[in-house]
Structures are given as structure tokens and as C-alpha cells.
């Protein structure tokens, strides 16, 4: 029993580090793209709004598995010779970005209309209203849902394991085959490693949420 734990540990830690890398890189990527999409959705230019809406709708309604399949299948035909790892990063970024955009939008929802109206009535333009009045107030409220998006991303990185990225789930899959006698132990060990990432993130989100509620 304990042998199995010791035996799988090196592979698990390598997988854990890979999962963290996927989370960090595609998390930053999804945040940047998500902010862009959210900005496009409120921009005065109709074609940008439309593009952002279609982008969000399509990506939110396709399973991650198919998004990654697209990356592993179509992007190489388009003339890239990227490895599965960067392709998985692209897929996870693309899949997560509309959720980031929606989280930001829901934060904007929380800012009373009067705030924007007041800013406009004292003569501020679009950029000023957004950056000086709406955004600072929305930012606080955006953090908890945003953390939830990143928690979901942590769990979604496991799908990259199906596409030959050596992250935690792929290591778990291999470990269950190498240690058929202690399958439960090996699985719980992997679950524990995921919880090490997700539970603290959830606690942070909860704490911030409470603080925001008190402040309002």
C-alpha cells in the first residue's frame, strides 16, 4: 500500500508541476483574451461587439474535449509544428477566455447604472467612464467569480492529459494501471493533489466575497 504511494510520487509531482504550469500560463492567457473580449462587448463599434458575442457563444457551447481536438487536429494542418503542450495551452486559453469575459461582465452588472450616468453627466467620455468610474468598482466584485473560473480551469487541465500532455490526470491514469491492487489509494492521492490547488483558491474567493459584501 505505502509502496504504491512512494512509487507513484515522483510521477505525480512531475504531473502536479505540469498541471500548475498549464494553470498559470493558460490562466494568464485567458485573462488577457477575456479582458479583450469583455471590452469588445461593451465597445461602441458594432462589428467588434458582434465578433465578441459570437466568439463567446461558440466557445461556451463546445465541450473542452472538442476544443482541444480542434487544436490537436486543425492547427497542425494550418502549418504549425507545435508540440501537444503548447497546443493544449492554446486550447485551454481559448476555452477559458469567454468565461473570464462573462465573469468580468457580471462584475460590471453589479455597478449601479447611476454611477455611469453620473460620470457621463459630468462630461466624461467612454474611456474615462470605464477606466475611472465603472472598472474600479467592478474590479472588487469581479475577483470572486474570476477565482471560480480559475478553479474550473485547474480541473479542466485534466482534459489535456487525454491529449498526451504529461499532467496529473495522465499520471493518475498510468498509476492505476501500474498498481491495480491499490487503485483507490492512488486515485485519492491524485484527488488530494488537485484539492491542494482548488480548496485554497476557493477559500480566498469566499473570504474576498465576504469582504465585498460588507463593504457595499
Amino acid at each position, binding site marked *: 500500500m505505502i509502496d504504491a504511494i512512494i512509487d507513484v510520487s515522483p510521477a505525480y509531482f512531475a504531473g502536479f508541476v505540469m498541471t500548475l504550469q498549464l494553470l498559470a500560463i493558460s490562466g494568464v492567457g485567458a485573462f488577457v483574451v477575456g479582458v479583450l473580449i469583455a471590452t469588445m462587448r461593451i465597445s461602441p463599434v458594432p462589428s467588434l461587439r458582434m465578433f465578441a458575442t459570437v466568439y463567446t457563444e461558440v466557445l461556451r457551447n463546445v465541450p473542452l474535449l472538442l476544443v482541444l481536438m480542434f487544436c490537436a487536429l486543425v492547427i497542425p494542418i494550418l502549418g504549425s509544428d507545435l508540440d501537444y503542450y503548447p497546443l493544449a495551452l492554446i486550447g485551454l486559453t481559448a476555452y477559458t477566455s469567454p468565461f473570464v469575459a462573462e465573469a468580468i461582465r457580471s462584475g460590471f452588472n453589479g455597478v449601479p447604472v447611476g454611477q455611469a450616468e453620473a460620470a457621463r453627466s459630468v462630461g466624461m467620455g467612454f474611456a474615462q467612464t470605464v477606466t475611472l468610474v465603472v472598472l474600479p468598482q467592478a474590479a472588487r466584485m469581479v475577483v470572486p467569480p474570476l477565482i471560480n473560473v480559475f478553479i474550473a480551469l485547474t480541473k479542466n487541465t485534466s482534459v489535456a492529459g487525454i491529449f498526451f500532455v504529461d499532467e496529473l490526470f495522465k499520471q493518475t491514469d498510468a498509476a492505476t494501471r501500474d498498481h491495480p491492487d491499490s*487503485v483507490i489509494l492512488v486515485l485519492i492521492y491524485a484527488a488530494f493533489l488537485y484539492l491542494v490547488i482548488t480548496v485554497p483558491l476557493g477559500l480566498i474567493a469566499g473570504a474576498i466575497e465576504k469582504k465585498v459584501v460588507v463593504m457595499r
Partner: protein
Amino acid sequence: MSLSVLYDAPGPKTRRRSMIASIIGVILIVAFFFWMYLTLAAPRVNANGAIQPGTFDPSRWDILALPDVWISFGIGTLNTLRMAAVAAALAVLIGILFSFGRTSRFAAVRGITGVILEFVRGIPVLLMIFFVFLVFAAGSYWSGVFGLALYNGAIIGEALRAGVKSLPRGQREAGLAVGLTPIKAWAFIEFPQAFRQMLPIILAQLVVLLKDTSLAFIVSYPELARTIGNNRNFFGSRYMFTLFAIGLVIYLVLNLTMSWIARFVARRSGPRLGKALPNTPRQIGVDGTRAITLPGPGYGPPDPPH
């Protein structure tokens, strides 16, 4: 067409500028897709020097004429729906149980439910399905159903709990005052209100569940994503793009329909019941953003309590 308070109604100059920007935007997007189309359509040279026909070459699409392909995709779609429907019903049930446990009078029950909930919520669905499959030897269908139901049930449970918490305390107190037991007060007064209020969130979660059925692919359940793989194994990888395209379109149709239903229900039951309580989660995904959209017919102040 929603007007925004963030900028003025455009004048002739701005309209012209925005028109130009729109045209450039459309041209760029069309150009990108055209480039993608051309690249995909171009014949490719293999690593070993053999020339493959382009992705849109008729020789790569001729399997569409075979009824077997369509039958297999039909079965795959049905299997996906079969799993999603049962898992959704179970998820709502488990969600109710979770929310009940989390609001229990007994600290021990609350504590245990909380720990289970954190565990279930914190690990990937893929791992959950795999866990049920290996540990309980449940067979591919039921491991998918239980994995999905547990995970989504935990999230629905938390939504319901938030819904109960956001109700005015007087609701429960009034129930207790007329002699209901705490359980009855929960079941007849608090829960029905919380459920209706949270319906948009629950439905949105069920869309996620429908998407996540694709993960049952890992335990060889013959749903839609697996159907793509099976057909690829049968017809060869030259048809991969074709098969992928079929699967993608079916998923989009299924999920967009579900999302549309969810949004429709949200519009009908959400805003009216979601009173102006600070904790009331606002629905996400309904058009427009409150801070920037002028109040239209659907966006006025909440109706007074009935």
C-alpha cells in the same frame, strides 16, 4: 438595439467612423477565415513524401453518403442525451440533498456535508468519472452518470444554499411561528422560493453537464465524442476532419438549444423573483450589462412584492 449610457448616441461623423471600423473588422475576420479555408483546402505533402488531398477534397467527404455514418452519429447523440438527462435529474436531487445537509440544525451533519462537498467540487469531473468507474466498477454508463451527477449536484447544492440564505429571515420565522417544524419550513417555504430564484443558475449548470458528457469518453461510453473516435478508427484518419466537423455541429446545436432554453426560463422567472437583496446572484449571460444598458422593458426596477 440597446443604447448604452457609456457613450453618446453616435452622430454622423462617429457613425461613419464606426462604420469604417466595422467594415475593416469584417474584412479582417473574413480574410482570416478565408486564409484558414485555403490552407485547409490545399493538398498537403506527408512526411514520407506522399501527397494528401486537401481537407475539403470530395474524397475526404464521401463517407457522408453512407447511412451507417449518420446512424452511428444518431446513436452517439442519443447516448449523450440519455446520459445527460439521467445525470441532470440525479444532479438536481443530489443538489437538494447537499443544500439540505448544509443548512442542517446539527453541526455534525453540516460539517460532514461540507467536507464531502469540498471534496466533490474540488476534483476534476474526469477524475470523478474515472474514480466511480474503477472503484465501484459501475460500468461506463453509470460511472458517467454518477460522476457527472455528483459533481454538478455539489454545484447546484451550493447555488440552492445561497438562494435559501438570500431569502428574508421573516420567511422562515413566519413558517416557524405558524407551527411548522424546521424541516417543514425549509421544505414548504424556503426551498421552493430558493429553487425558483436559482433556476437560471441551475439550468446554466445543466448546460455544463451536457457538455461534460463528452468526458465519459474516458470510460469508453459510446457518446458523441467517442463516436468521432470510433468512426475515425473504422474509416481511417483521413476522414478525421470530416468527422470532427459533424460532431462539432451536433454539439453546437444541442448546447445552443439548451442555452437558449435556459436563457428563456431565466428571463421569465429570474428578474421578477430575484428581489433587490444584496446577495441575489444576478443572472449571467442575459443580453446587455446593467451598468451600461439603459433600462428597457425587462430591466426596470424589480416589481414590488406580490
